Structure formats: structure tokens, C-alpha cells
């Protein structure tokens, strides 16, 4: 009769398998001298094969009683075959024992149990690969579901008839070198088939084995030196070295043989990305999303709040209340004018946009938190690459939609110096939260029921970026191939309320703080300039310092449609903070209410002049804070001036083309308009189409 031992971890289904294989023909007793149960039975289908159910063990290290029993039996008794029952759902733990059994050199079959549970987990084990890697017969089964017991039985019969032989698992070269030297010391004392096992046990400083071998003092010294050297090399204790080596081997087997079917299935994020980042659908979806964002925040929901704040809070309640208080305190007339018209009027006109700003931040916060904004960078990279740009440059631009300062600083992540300098120049083309007030003012005043205006400002910025990229990449200063762009797309998830709240609160708080500081100071200055002349006498606006300064530069903006002193000083004040454009216009027009302000603007400028004003302020030199940051990042005055010159030049060109073309299209034009329009369009065409690409010239020269 042949004896087959079932070995394996506890809870690997060993006993279930034993029961299925032996049926009722089993004998239960105790292992000699201990209370641990010993179960032995005959195979149902072949009574010549006896099956022994060894106590469950995790390793052959002799710590627990069960481990000592199992190890003793496995190493000292004559077994025809060992069936190592592994829990397929905990393969890493099970294979540790398998490796130790392989080290013994005993005839072994690996039974991968609990296949039914593994299938439920969506995983598979490549049995043939595992057989190849271990050079062992491997059988997949489920003892609980009685699946493939016949296969195991057949393999057991074959194993008994022709015991499988296999190479030992080979570990780290340094460990193998130490084991080889220890084996040399032990040869003669241990059977060749067991040399590997004993070498490992001696290396691990196994006390039982050391007692068993009775090594001479010379052997002990040599072996100690070998172990000490290995410990020094690995910077670890000998038993840890072996444990780690085994687990490394197990990890290799796992990575080669265990397949997670979920890896090949598309997650929900992947399925959404198939549409959202699709070659054809990505841009239209992006355009639709941004249109919706601006429509909700600037045109509809946000407008309700803004109208209320402008008409009621800063239109009547606060001015009326403050006016009464000031009059009751007999405050001087000029001081009342400063407070009511200058500070409340100016700052109030900016704070009036807080509802729209908050709504916009809410929408952008949702897009960012759910993971969509990361896809935009990926989508833009595809487009950017066509024009020798990199999607990496788009990340700072995304940040700039909050504020240009961190956007400019984010260019530090761009390795290519040329691309970095170019990105610094272009990043402020994206409308920041300050420019939103200008967008909201122009779209609300000149295009009250047209939802395309606000999102068009966003796309105008992007167009300026792409167009500038195409042009600048053709110049020697910035020519070069685009940088590769790799980014991890986070999985989509429902936006988290806490994150959104923080996003909206922090940005809105910043907006209000800015209004209470920089805008407040600007309004004080603008009020004085608009109410005093060069002799510091209080005068009407038409004789004020402000008008004189504005009139000096106004002719420059005449071709853009807003060549009057009010718009000019608004542009200049915008250099301090873009919100100042709104506050300055309000002060310059001297309106008492939001409605009269809107009427005054409509009377002074045409809608297209208003749009040209918007385009100019969107693209021209940014605020002082951003300019300061540009200077810090460039580290050079010339580069900063170059960037400011380019930005302002492009802003002028864009506004010029928009306004002049509109005049031509509406039929109210002169030869001057045609010349301006042709000049502007020609410049754009030259920059985008006709200008020679210096990077191509270089490539041709090399060839």
C-alpha cells in the first residue's frame, strides 16, 4: 500500500478534500504522545492508496506542535507522495509552504483548492504556467464543490507510480552562493537529496537541525562566517534573508500565473473616458460642458444673485443707510462722495459679482473634483501635439483659471526651458477669476440674453494659447519638439461636498478679501483722480486728472472701438487688478444704480466695442501680482518685457480684428476700417500660416 500525505495551511480545505477522497473509510486517532488528531484513510477509488491528513501548517519551521509533527512526519517517514493542498484565494501564503516542501526534494503534487471561490473573485490561475515554473504537477479543484477530484486522483496515482522530480527553487545569487558553501561543509554528513534542505536549515540557524547534524567546531566556525558574511551583504538576519527570498520567488510566481480578470475589464471610469476623451467627441463635449458652466453661472443662476446684490444691497440698502449716517454725523461733502460714490460704488460694483463668481467656482469645483478637468489636459495634449506643443503646458493654464500667479509658478514642472518660458508668456491668456468680473459685466450689459458670450471668452483665451503656440514655436527662440506628456487620469468619482465647499469658500473668500483691499485702495485713488484737477481743486469729472490721463492714451484704443478716456483708464486700472476695470468704469460713469450704469455703458459703446474691450482685457498684460511672478520665474527683465509686449500686442491685434471685421460685416465702415482689418488679419495669417518654421529648417539642414 502506498502512503500519500495531505499537507497544507490550516483552512486550505485539506480536511474537506480528505473526506471527499476517503469517504467513510477513515481512521481517526492521535499522533503518538500528543493530543493532535491523526487521520488516515483509503482512497475511495483505489484502496491501494492510503491518505494521511497532516495537521495544517504554515511553514516547516518548528514553532507549533502541529508544525513539529508535520515536519517530523514529512522528513522522517517514508512517503510515496505529498499532496500540497493550497488555498487558491490565498495563494501567496500557501505557496510559501509549497516552496519549503520543494526544498525538501520529496515527491510533490500541488493541488489548487477552492477554485470556485477564486472564480467568484474574478481571478484565474494559469495552471500550465505554474506547472512550468515549479516543474511540478499542478491540479485545480474544488473539494467543497467536488470539482476535478477525478483529476487529482489520477495525478496522485501517476505520482505514486512515477514520483515527480523537480529542480529546487533558486533564490538570490548571494544566498545561493552562501548555501552552496554550506552544502560543501555538510556533504558527507547528509544524503545528497537532502543537502539543499539541510543547507537552508543550517543557514536559518535551525536549532533542531544543528543538534541533529552534530557539526564539528571547524564546520561550525566556517558556517558561522558564511552566514555572518551573508547577513552583512543583505543587512538582515539569516532567517529573514531566507523568508524574503522565498516571498520574492512567490511574488514572481504570482505575477506570472495569477490573472485578475478585472484588469481586462473596463472600469466605469474607462467607459466614461471612451466617450469623454474620444478623438471626435472630446472637444465638442468640452465646449458643451464649458458653455453649460458659464451659462449657469454667468447667465442664469448667478445673474439672479448678482442682480439682487447690485440692485438692492449695493444699489439701495447700503448707500442709503450709510448716506443717512454720514449726513447725521455732518461729514464733509467730499468725504461723503468718497465713501458713497468712490468706495461703496466702486467696491460694491465688484462685490456685486460675488454670486456669479461663487456659482462659477461651484461648477468648476465639481468638474475638478469629479476628475473631468484632468481629462481636459489629456484632450488638449492631443491637439497641442499637432502644433509642437505639449499638454504639460496646459496644466499651468488650467490653474490660471483660478489665478495667474500659481499658474505661472506651476510652469516650474516643465523641464524644457524654451517650453517653460513660452508657457509663462501664454498662461495668463486663460481668464482668471478677476477677469470673470469683466466677462460678467460685458456679457450682462451688452449681450443680456446671449449665452455664447461668456463661454466664448474662455475659448478666446484657449484660441490665443494655441495660435500663439503655433506662431512662437516657429521662431528660433522657442523652436523645438514638444515634450512627452504622461499623466495619470484619476478615476471618476462623485464630487465630495467637503472638497467643493472648500474650493468655493477659499476662492470666494479671496475674491472678497481682494475687493476689500486692492480694489478699495484703487477706488480711493480713482475717485480722487476723477474729482480733482492738477491744482488739487475739487472739480467735475470732465475737468479731472483722470480724464486728462485717459484722453492722452484714448486715441490708441480708437481702432478697437473704445477710444474714450473712461475705457482707457479702466484698462490702466486693470493693471493693478483686473476687477478694477469694473470699479473704474462705474466710478468714471458716476452712476447711482446698476441699471443706470448699464444704460450709460450701452450709450457710450456698441456691443462689439464692448466685446473688443473684453477681448483686450482678457489677453493683455496681466495684473501687477502676475507680472511680478513672471519676473521672478524668468529671472530676467528683458524676458518679462518681451512677454508683456507680446501679450499686449496680441490683445490689441485680436480686439482690432474683432471690431474692424464687425464694422465691415455690418456695413458701417470706411477705407480706414478695411485697412485696419486687412492689416490685422494679414499679421495673424503670417504668424500662423506663412511664417517659416525654424525647427523644420534646422532638421533639413541636419539632413
Amino acid at each position: 500500500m502506498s502512503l500519500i500525505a495531505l499537507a497544507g495551511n490550516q483552512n486550505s480545505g485539506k480536511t474537506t478534500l480528505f473526506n471527499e477522497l476517503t469517504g467513510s473509510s477513515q481512521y481517526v486517532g492521535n499522533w503518538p504522545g500528543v493530543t493532535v488528531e491523526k487521520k488516515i484513510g483509503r482512497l475511495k477509488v483505489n484502496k491501494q492508496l492510503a491518505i494521511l491528513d497532516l495537521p495544517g501548517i504554515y511553514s516547516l519551521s518548528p514553532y507549533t506542535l502541529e508544525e513539529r509533527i508535520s515536519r517530523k512526519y514529512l522528513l522522517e517517514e517514508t512517503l510515496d507522495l505529498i499532496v500540497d493542498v493550497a488555498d487558491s484565494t490565498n495563494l501567496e501564503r500557501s505557496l510559501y509552504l509549497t516552496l519549503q516542501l520543494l526544498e525538501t526534494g520529496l515527491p510533490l503534487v500541488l493541488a489548487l483548492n477552492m477554485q470556485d471561490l477564486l472564480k467568484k473573485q474574478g481571478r484565474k490561475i494559469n495552471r500550465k504556467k505554474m506547472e512550468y515554473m515549479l516543474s511540478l504537477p499542478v491540479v485545480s479543484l474544488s473539494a467543497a464543490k467536488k470539482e476535478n477530484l477525478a483529476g487529482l486522483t489520477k495525478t496522485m496515482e501517476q505520482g505514486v507510480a512515477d514520483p515527480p522530480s523537480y529542480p529546487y527553487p533558486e533564490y538570490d545569487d548571494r544566498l545561493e552562493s552562501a548555501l552552496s558553501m554550506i552544502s560543501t561543509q555538510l556533504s558527507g554528513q547528509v544524503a545528497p537529496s537532502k543537502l539543499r534542505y539541510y543547507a537552508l536549515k543550517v543557514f536559518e540557524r535551525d536549532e533542531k537541525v544543528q543538534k541533529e547534524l552534530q557539526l564539528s567546531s571547524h564546520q561550525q566556525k566556517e558556517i558561522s562566517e558564511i552566514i555572518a558574511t551573508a547577513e552583512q551583504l543583505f543587512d538582515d538576519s539569516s532567517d529573514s534573508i531566507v523568508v524574503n527570498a522565498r516571498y520574492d520567488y512567490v511574488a514572481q510566481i504570482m505575477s506570472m500565473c495569477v490573472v485578475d480578470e478585472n484588469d481586462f475589464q473596463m472600469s466605469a471610469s474607462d467607459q466614461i473616458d471612451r466617450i469623454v476623451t474620444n478623438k471626435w467627441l472630446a472637444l465638442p463635449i468640452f465646449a458643451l460642458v464649458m458653455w453649460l458652466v458659464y451659462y449657469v453661472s454667468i447667465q442664469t443662476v448667478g445673474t439672479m444673485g448678482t442682480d439682487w446684490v447690485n440692485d438692492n444691497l449695493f444699489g439701495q440698502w447700503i448707500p442709503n443707510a450709510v448716506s443717512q449716517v454720514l449726513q447725521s454725523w455732518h461729514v464733509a461733502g467730499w468725504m461723503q462722495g468718497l465713501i458713497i460714490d468712490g468706495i461703496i460704488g466702486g467696491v460694491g460694483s465688484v462685490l456685486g459679482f460675488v454670486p456669479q463668481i461663487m456659482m462659477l467656482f461651484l461648477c468648476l469645483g465639481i468638474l475638478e473634483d469629479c476628475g473631468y478637468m484632468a481629462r481636459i489636459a489629456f484632450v488638449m495634449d492631443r491637439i497641442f501635439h499637432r502644433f509642437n506643443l505639449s499638454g504639460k503646458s496646459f496644466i499651468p493654464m488650467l490653474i490660471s483659471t483660478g489665478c495667474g500667479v500659481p499658474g505661472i509658478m506651476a510652469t516650474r514642472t516643465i523641464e524644457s526651458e524654451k517650453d517653460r518660458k513660452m508657457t509663462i508668456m501664454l498662461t495668463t491668456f486663460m481668464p482668471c477669476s478677476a477677469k470673470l468680473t469683466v466677462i460678467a459685466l460685458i456679457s450682462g450689459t451688452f449681450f443680456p440674453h446671449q449665452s455664447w458670450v461668456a463661454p466664448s471668452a474662455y475659448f478666446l483665451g484657449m484660441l490665443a494659447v494655441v495660435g500663439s503656440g503655433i506662431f512662437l514655436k516657429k521662431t528660433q527662440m522657442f523652436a523645438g519638439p514638444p515634450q512627452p506628456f504622461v499623466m495619470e487620469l484619476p478615476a471618476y468619482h462623485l464630487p465630495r461636498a467637503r472638497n467643493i465647499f472648500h474650493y468655493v469658500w477659499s476662492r470666494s473668500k479671496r475674491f472678497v478679501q481682494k475687493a476689500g483691499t486692492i480694489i478699495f485702495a484703487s477706488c480711493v485713488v480713482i475717485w480722487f483722480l476723477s474729482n480733482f484737477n492738477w491744482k488739487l481743486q475739487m472739480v467735475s469729472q470732465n475737468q479731472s486728472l483722470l480724464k486728462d490721463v485717459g484722453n492722452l492714451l484714448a486715441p490708441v484704443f480708437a481702432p478697437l472701438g473704445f477710444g474714450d478716456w473712461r475705457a482707457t483708464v479702466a484698462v490702466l486700472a486693470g493693471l493693478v487688478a483686473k476687477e478694477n476695470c469694473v470699479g473704474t468704469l462705474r466710478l468714471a460713469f458716476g452712476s447711482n444704480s446698476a441699471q443706470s450704469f448699464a444704460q450709460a455703458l450701452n450709450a457710450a459703446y456698441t456691443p462689439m466695442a464692448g466685446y473688443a474691450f473684453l477681448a483686450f482685457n482678457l489677453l493683455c498684460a496681466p495684473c501687477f501680482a502676475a507680472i511680478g511672478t513672471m519676473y521672478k520665474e524668468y529671472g530676467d527683465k528683458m524676458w518679462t518685457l518681451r512677454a508683456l509686449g507680446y501679450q499686449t500686442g496680441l490683445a490689441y491685434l485680436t480686439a482690432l480684428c474683432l471690431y474692424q471685421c464687425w464694422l465691415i460685416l455690418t456695413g458701417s465702415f470706411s477705407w480706414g476700417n478695411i485697412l485696419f482689418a486687412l492689416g490685422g488679419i494679414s499679421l495673424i495669417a503670417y504668424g500662423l500660416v506663412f511664417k517659416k518654421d525654424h525647427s523644420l529648417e534646422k532638421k533639413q539642414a541636419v539632413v
Partner: protein
Amino acid sequence: MAATIILGIFIFGAFAWVVYHKFIKHDASDCHSCEDVGCPLAHAKMEQKTSRHGS
């Protein structure tokens, strides 16, 4: 008159403070509150805090 002077001191004092802090004083940072303007590093810190407290 007194009210005018007091208001004047308050308003021009505030004006001077803003001009000094925003344009004259050279701070280490460009924004006094990076988190507020969407600095991604500050945002990452905030995300860490949120996940520690929220999870």
C-alpha cells in the same frame, strides 16, 4: 468736522496699510494665502487633511 477727520484717518490709514502690504512690503510669497487662489501644492495638502479627517 470731527467725524470727517476720524473717517479720514480710518480710510487713509486703511489705504496706506493696503499699499504698504500689497506693493511695498516684500513677503516671501506672492499670494498671502496660496490655498485661496488655487495653488495645487496647497490644494494637495488640503486633500491630505480632508482624507485623514474624513476617512
